[in-house]
């Protein structure tokens, strides 16, 4: 086995195993405090998976909002209510059996669908080798093609004469570079930041659709101003509603 270790796969295995194992630990633990801690670990390593998939902004937001905000809120809820018998509420055995059957069947369906499509098994390895030869021949335009599939990707072609400027915010820049496996192969590190493109898409123009040659697909890439506004109003309503629901009522205190 002479192949060097593919470090992207290594870190994917690391984060994926931690995420799955601690998600299972959340299910099978009965102590609510430990469940909260396992959930923090599981969601934290999920953000590592996001970084590996090229979604740097989403991964950072996962850490900031989810792990840093939502789960701290959840831990506070656990601390406020974990008293006496509520720390560990046991589930009856029959419910475990039923839930395991349903969960196993659901996982079987999902896994079968995920495995059955051969296009999803990964980038094709011989094609990346062919791309590396092409990359050596035209060194200034090879950045996006070295990582992509071998067919001349329609998105990346119009970018190449323009240089790297237009490519910086393009959607296909989310992609990780192909793993360097063979000696003599050029390893290109590309700018894979997505924060600018996401910010632009939330406020109006879609900078990742500028080089899209197909008018149909370009029309499908609409901006996200309206969902952004809806979410803003939604968050305001949730803020007011949560504060209203969680306030302490004086009436109940005096009755005690």
């Amino acid at each position, binding site marked *: 086995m002479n*192949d060097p270790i593919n470090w992207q796969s290594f870190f994917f295995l690391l984060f994926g195993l931690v995420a799955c194992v601690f998600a299972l630990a959340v299910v099978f633990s009965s102590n609510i405090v430990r469940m909260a801690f396992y959930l923090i670990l*599981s969601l934290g390593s999920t953000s590592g998976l996001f970084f590996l998939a090229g979604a740097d902004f989403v991964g950072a937001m996962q850490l900031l*909002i989810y792990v840093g905000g939502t789960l701290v809120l959840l831990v506070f809820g656990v601390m406020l209510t974990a008293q006496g018998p509520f720390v560990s509420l046991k589930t009856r055995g029959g419910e475990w059996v039923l839930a395991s059957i349903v969960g196993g069947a659901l996982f079987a369906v999902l896994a079968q669908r995920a495995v059955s499509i051969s296009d999803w098994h990964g980038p094709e390895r011989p094609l990346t080798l062919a791309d590396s030869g092409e990359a050596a021949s035209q060194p200034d335009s090879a950045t996006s093609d070295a990582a992509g599939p071998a067919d001349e990707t329609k998105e990346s072609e119009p970018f190449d004469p323009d240089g790297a400027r237009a490519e910086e915010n393009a959607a296909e820049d989310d992609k990780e570079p192909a793993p360097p496996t063979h000696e003599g192969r050029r390893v290109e590190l590309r700018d894979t930041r997505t924060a600018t493109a996401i910010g632009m898409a939330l406020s109006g123009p879609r900078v990742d659709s500028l080089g899209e040659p197909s008018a149909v697909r370009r029309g499908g890439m609409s901006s996200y101003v309206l969902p952004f506004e809806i979410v803003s109003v939604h968050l305001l309503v949730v803020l007011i509603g949560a504060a209203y629901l969680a306030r302490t009522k004086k009436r109940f205190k005096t009755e005690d």
Partner: protein
Amino acid sequence: MNLLTEPVGLTHYLLVGAVLFVCGVVCMAVKRNALGVLMGIELVLNGANVNFVAFANGNLRSDGDWALGLDGHLIALFVIVLAAAEAAVALAITLNFYNNHSTVDVDRAEELHG
């Protein structure tokens, strides 16, 4: 097919997402603590988010033209924000229920059905 030397593909991400999703569904079904049910919801949303982010990346598959691109990232962001909002409201309801009934056992919330 050594996993350490082969590049990962979309299938691997989908399997991780499926594990998270199924764990969340089972967690929602079996937990008696209301906060445990809430944790199950968080796991389900994260499993869906893993799928969105994986589908957004065209480099994980051989038909990379059909990748979601930036749309996947944006949908994942909206899911994260809505999950935060949902957790806040659910936690407020749970605390209210705990104040009124002195329990967080969802099996004892029977008088809530009107």
